[in-house]
């Protein structure tokens, strides 16, 4: 983490430097899993990024007279609307026993499916997954829908009628509870709760677990239900787009952007230290080189107008990776398509990259995926890993008229075939929590 680069060197620090600590192992991403609005596997997601195919739709549950929000970016091929998981329909390859499913909300189930993909992608054997050197960090907002169902049932029918698995299916730790139990994880595990920065925090701390030698392998999971009860409560704070055209609803950096489009799903990253990856003959996507975080200290829900915390997070991440701003080829922006948030991030980018004259490509893949809240950081890191491996830069879709306040940013409107080597991924959450992650091609 950024602590490796002291801001001020005193006498004690100088003395300590004489004994050189052992080199930290590199941390590599060796497996990916996706259940998203733009595809339920890495190949489909890559095609969507290249073709700028978005996942937005006129979402049937929103089509009510009293609901001004009409568009969402639902996960495809899954129907998880019922509070009873035994009613769900989903692809046959994820067939699962009732006793596994009963403690899951939609987000946890998406995570379970993405986990299966990531394990397959990384070619991990059972022994590789269930041992004390392998942990799991997850991020999710829990399942508001199931929590609502549970509380309604409790009030209507009495406390003894609540499902015994209601709590573990509903509260914010549901993804880690379920995956740790079902995949028999024995190493470090916990959940992260910094709203839309959650899974970036999970990734950063998972990277540190490996770099510090505490774990050899970590699963990083971001997941959200992405349904009425997880998305619509954001309408009250006027954070959601009221567009009715799916192709125009999410348009980060556009002058007419009017809010984000909610989505759900899951992304799973497999992180391993370089020795473990080499031992297994794994094919890494990229290295998680460093990360940085900082807080705005400003407002419970509104970004700092100058993007102060995000700028500090990016600076720390670059310093921890020993990179200059000019070394970064591409930035996957947090930009969710809200008027205030995108502007704040543009200012943070200007503050960090402007003075050196560096003009990295900047795009927001949320124009295609929608905003996945706790899912966002892990998902976008996964998208960056695909871009690094395959050599392309995802375009920033749906910009009809670029916001003049972002005119100095180097924003590609189309996906470019272009080998890239160093990528920065930004995430910002409520309370002004900001995380920046540096990925390097291996």
């Amino acid at each position, binding site marked *: 983490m950024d602590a490796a680069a002291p801001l001020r060197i005193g006498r004690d620090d100088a003395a300590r430097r004489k004994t050189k600590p052992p080199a930290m192992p590199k941390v590599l991403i060796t497996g990916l899993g996706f259940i998203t609005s733009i595809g339920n596997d890495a190949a489909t997601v890559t095609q969507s990024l290249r073709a700028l195919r978005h996942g937005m739709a006129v979402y049937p*549950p929103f089509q009510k007279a009293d609901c001004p929000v009409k568009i969402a970016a639902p996960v495809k091929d899954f129907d998880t609307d019922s509070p009873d998981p035994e009613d769900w329909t989903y692809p046959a390859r994820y067939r699962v026993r009732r006793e596994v499913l009963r403690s899951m909300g939609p987000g946890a189930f998406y995570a379970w499916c993405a986990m299966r993909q990531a394990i397959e992608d990384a070619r991990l054997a059972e022994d590789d997954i269930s041992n004390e050197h392998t942990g799991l960090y997850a991020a999710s907002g829990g399942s508001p829908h199931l929590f609502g169902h549970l509380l309604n049932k409790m009030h209507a029918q009495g406390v003894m009628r609540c499902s015994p698995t209601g709590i573990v299916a509903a509260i914010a730790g549901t993804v880690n509870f379920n995956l740790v139990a079902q995949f028999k994880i024995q190493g470090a595990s916990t959940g992260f709760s910094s709203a839309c920065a959650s899974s970036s925090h999970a990734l950063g701390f998972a990277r540190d677990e490996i770099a510090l030698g505490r774990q050899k392998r970590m699963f990083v999971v971001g997941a959200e239900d992405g349904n009425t009860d997880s998305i619509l409560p954001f309408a009250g704070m006027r954070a959601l787009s009221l567009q009715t055209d799916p192709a125009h609803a999410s348009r980060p950096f556009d002058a007419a952007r009017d809010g984000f489009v909610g989505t759900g799903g899951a992304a799973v990253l497999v992180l391993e230290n370089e020795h473990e990856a080499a031992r297994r003959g794994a094919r890494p996507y990229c290295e998680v080189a460093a990360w940085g975080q900082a807080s705005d200290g400003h407002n419970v829900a509104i970004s700092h107008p100058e993007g102060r915390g995000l700028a500090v997070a990016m600076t720390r991440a670059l310093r921890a990776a020993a990179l200059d701003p000019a070394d970064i080829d591409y930035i996957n922006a947090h930009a969710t398509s809200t008027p205030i948030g995108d502007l704040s991030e543009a200012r943070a980018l200007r503050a960090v990259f402007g003075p050196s004259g560096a003009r990295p490509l900047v795009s927001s893949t949320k124009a295609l995926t929608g905003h996945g809240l706790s899912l966002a950081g892990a998902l976008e890191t996964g998208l960056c890993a695909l871009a690094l491996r395959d050599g392309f830069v995802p375009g920033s879709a749906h910009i009809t008229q670029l916001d003049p306040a972002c005119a100095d940013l180097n924003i590609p409107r189309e996906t470019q075939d272009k080998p890239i080597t160093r990528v920065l991924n930004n995430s910002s959450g409520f309370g002004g929590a900001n995380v920046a992650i540096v990925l390097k091609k291996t």
Partner: protein
Amino acid sequence: MTDSADNNPSNNGFSKNVDAAGGDAADADAAGADTADGDAASGVTAAAAGGPTSSASGSTTGVTTATASSGSITATTGAITTADAAPLPAQTPEDDEATLRESLKRCSPVTVEAALAFRATRDPAFVPAIVIGIVERFVEPDLRPKLKGGADDVRLIDDLGIDSLTMMEIVILTEEVLQVQIHNDELRNLRSIGDVKVFIDCKLRGVPPPAPARFLPVEQIAAVMPMQPPFLFLNEASVGGAGAEGKYRITGDEFFLQGHFKDNPVMPASMMLEALGQLAVLALIEGIIPSEDGLEVDPAAIYFTSCEGVRCHRICRPGDLLSLSVKPKRAKMPLATFEGQIRVGQEKAVVVEEITLAFGYAGPSATSPSAAGTAPAEDTTAATPASEAPAATTPTAATPTATESAATAPAKG
């Protein structure tokens, strides 16, 4: 999405909350939206988690195990149900049937028909079919055939794979369908389908169910038994009025397996009889034979005297889980005779027609068994008492009795 269905109070037995229910649900929605104004979805759940988590875990600990108390049917058992207390006026019989069918939608048609017939007639004869049908619905499909044909011996945990969470799902659905409340205390020790049937039958006939079997984990067994490791062959046991059941997993580390046989470890038949004898000793210590004058059996005064009709059906090896059971056949101070059986899974391993122990009572007026000093050595199962009272020396003697069972709620939360 399906909220409207959720808000519909589906059980008409809870009228006292019904008026408030609609309002509560609406309030809950509003609260969710308000919270989200200020923070993310994670904020909503985090804020709400404290109350429901603690209350739910507290409440689910209170509910356990399957089946129905039929207090509402006979009105003689004292269990007052909410159905008796106040029916919901707004519900029509058609609503009732629709709700019931929805609740039982994953049960067999036979179960649904039995439930509808029960609702119409309140005839207790339908209850066993309902309960078995509900249990079946929660059992994985590949295990369901075990429930066919009576299935009294089928154990809820070992044979049907029902864990404590599934057991609570069964309880909740049973309560809803039969419109009864099931009390934790009366159900804690139900371990087999037979137990369940007996429990229901007693409730319906308005007689108190048999005293629940008492479950003893290995620590408690070691604390009361004269035999001690490495000569204790019970990992767990439960002792009820009708008999005792125990389990022993052959580890392969048993000292006698080194020589029995060379390169071929087989549990000696004599040791299997010893294990059954130990279970009978435990049953005596736990008071399975009603004593005169409230005297307690002296653990240090129990000795083997004889056994009859021993038949071994199966070789038992390391890794096998022995399921032992003994039932008292007759007892007259100072002798108590049991019948016994050992199974491995569904396979019969050992049957003993009679195992007879001599025993004495503790205390100043206690008598010693006349056979005590002359315990016959005709059989290797002779059980020797420990040289000192183990209860005082076993550090785990004070271990709480709560253990994982079908009736135990998860403690985490």
